[in-house]
């Protein structure tokens, strides 16, 4: 796929509100046709503003936004081949389900017969059959969410924007809807741009993720790459659980921790550089004796300072003395030893599981 056919092309886009608020700071991004792309970041990071600029609900202060190569400029939202699923759903309270879903088609002056057949299809697609004449106020949160989705999809937009659409739902329903959304996306084949602050949601659903912080796009990549190889401290801390140990690079592939221990890790900085070693809690293992550790692994000695029970897993906080402390997550299975606070333990990890990030 060449750059000119990107579904959404964002080039040098900046959005200022007033004099000194920079909501979006010079971002470049290309989202490919048929992709499920998530913009992930904490609240206030500029992800919603970016989405609103694609929709035409805000105009960029600088830069260009293209949809399939076509410059959007100051084109109003009603003239863009894009639809949005709003965070609060924004269903029209004075219209029933059918009229809500058919609104976009009626505004485009689509023939009546076609409107009703397409609305019918959309209602079936989101499994709301039989609720045609209900008002939004008479629907549950999950049903309202489906109406919002159908109302956008029925227009067959080239790009569908979703602004934290599952934020108002409870956990179980949210998980069901995540899978359902992903299914719908692969069925209709429309490019989805999904805004969320929930890293798990982004990882579950997206083909690619763009992580944003303070108005900047700090990393873009496939979900797995974002998780496995965060390119900076912010992404490392924001996506998933992570432990941080300060240290410095000894030589390529070797790092000295603050307490003097030398371990092997992934590095790309030159020797002598101050780095932070990042470790995922689930990639560490605990043993009672050094002799139990498989050969060729990194080994550190520490003691358990806290134990937290999560049901399907347990988390131990392990003190390393001068080098700091980190978390180890252990599956709750019978073969695993349970450690208590104060136990001396040996931590083992593969050198691929640890990365050294420059400050």
């Amino acid at each position, binding site marked *: 796929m060449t750059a000119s056919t990107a579904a959404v092309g964002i080039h040098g886009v900046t959005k200022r509100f007033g004099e000194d608020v920079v909501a979006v700071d010079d971002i470049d991004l290309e989202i490919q046709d048929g992709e499920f792309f998530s913009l992930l970041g904490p609240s206030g990071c500029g992800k919603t503003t970016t989405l609103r600029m694609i*929709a*035409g*609900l805000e105009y960029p202060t600088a830069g260009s936004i293209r949809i399939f190569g076509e410059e959007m400029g100051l084109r*109003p*939202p*009603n003239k863009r081949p*894009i*639809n*949005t699923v*709003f*965070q*609060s759903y*924004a*269903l*029209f*309270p*004075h219209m029933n389900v059918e009229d809500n879903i058919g*609104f*976009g088609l009626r*505004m*485009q002056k689509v023939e009546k017969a076609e409107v009703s057949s397409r609305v019918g299809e959309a209602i079936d697609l989101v499994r709301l059959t039989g609720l045609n004449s209900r008002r939004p*106020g008479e629907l549950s949160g999950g049903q309202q969410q489906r109406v919002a989705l159908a*109302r*956008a999809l029925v*227009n067959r937009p080239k790009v569908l924007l979703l602004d934290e659409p599952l934020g108002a739902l409870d956990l179980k329903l949210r998980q069901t809807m995540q899978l359902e959304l992903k299914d719908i996306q692969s069925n209709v084949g429309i490019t989805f741009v999904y805004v969320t602050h929930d890293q798990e949601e982004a990882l579950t659903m997206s083909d690619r993720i763009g992580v944003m912080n303070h108005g900047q796009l700090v990393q873009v990549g496939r979900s797995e790459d974002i998780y496995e190889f965060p390119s900076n401290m912010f992404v490392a801390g924001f996506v998933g659980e992570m432990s941080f140990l300060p240290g410095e690079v000894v030589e390529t592939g070797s790092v000295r921790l603050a307490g003097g221990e030398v371990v092997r890790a992934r590095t790309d900085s030159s020797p002598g550089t101050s780095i932070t070693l990042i470790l995922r809690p689930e990639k560490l293992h605990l043993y009672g004796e050094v002799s139990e550790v498989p050969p060729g692994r990194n080994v550190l000695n520490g003691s358990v300072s806290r134990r937290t029970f999560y049901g399907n897993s347990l988390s131990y906080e392990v003190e390393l003395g001068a080098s700091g402390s980190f978390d180890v997550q252990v599956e709750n299975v019978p073969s695993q030893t349970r450690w208590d606070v104060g136990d001396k333990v040996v931590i083992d990890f593969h050198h691929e599981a640890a990365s050294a990030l420059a400050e």
Partner: protein
Amino acid sequence: MTLTDERKPSEEEAANPELERGAERREAWRGFLHAVPAYAYLIVFFVLPLVIVFVFSFASRGRTGRPLLEDWNVDGWARLTDPLVRTIVGRSLLVAVMNTVFCLVIGYAFAYWIATRRKQSTRTLLLILVLIPFWSNFLVRTYAWRMLLDSDGYITQLGEFTGLWGRTLFTLPAVFLGLLYGYLPFMVLPLYAAIERIDWSLVEAGRDLYASGVKAFLRITLPLSRPGIIAGSILVFVPSLGAYVTPDILGGAKTTLLGNFIVTQFGAARNWPFGSALSGAILIVMLLATILYFRTGGRTV
């Protein structure tokens, strides 16, 4: 009934429903006590006078026009079919409807403008400006209009200077100007309350779904402001229909409206039964119209 006999309810269980009913009764009684002053006032100074008016509408007139509570008749009510009454009712309806429409159009634009100001402090300031006229007496303000509209008034001078109009005092346009001025705030306030409550993401959703700005307004903003439109229209229409001060001061003899006509019956014409019948008729018609309005359009979202 052995079953119930066997299982004796414990003391607490038995006592509970009784306690609950007692609490509810006390609650209701307390609620009623809160309302007593208002009820008493309304009954003595509103319901009772209305009953008196109703009674007088069936009274007869003495030789000097004095109302006599004897020889009961329906002459007062029969006169309601008089062509003169029909003319005045027609004119009053026209004035009230037109005034409501003027207030609605101008008031909506203004209320919308206030409601869409970003800063809360700006909105509050603008609302206070709407209310400031109420700080001075309505009669005084109406006399001020009289000066503006009279031969040497500024508005008349402006009209003569531009050659567009002359002296408007004592004409129907003067009455319209006065009524619009007097009742505009009653339209603006409920409209503002309704428009301010609208969730703007709905309008954005409309724009996102291919509605132009105008379409989004007509299909989303306007229907969602309906509660304000209804409340404002009632607040303006009802008093406009019975307006007295404004047409009396700014209108001439040719622009007699219902309010002035009724006053004449109790004053110069000395025909209390007819005046009472007129008052009663308006009241009944207004009541029915309001009920109908709420029934058909009062259902809010």
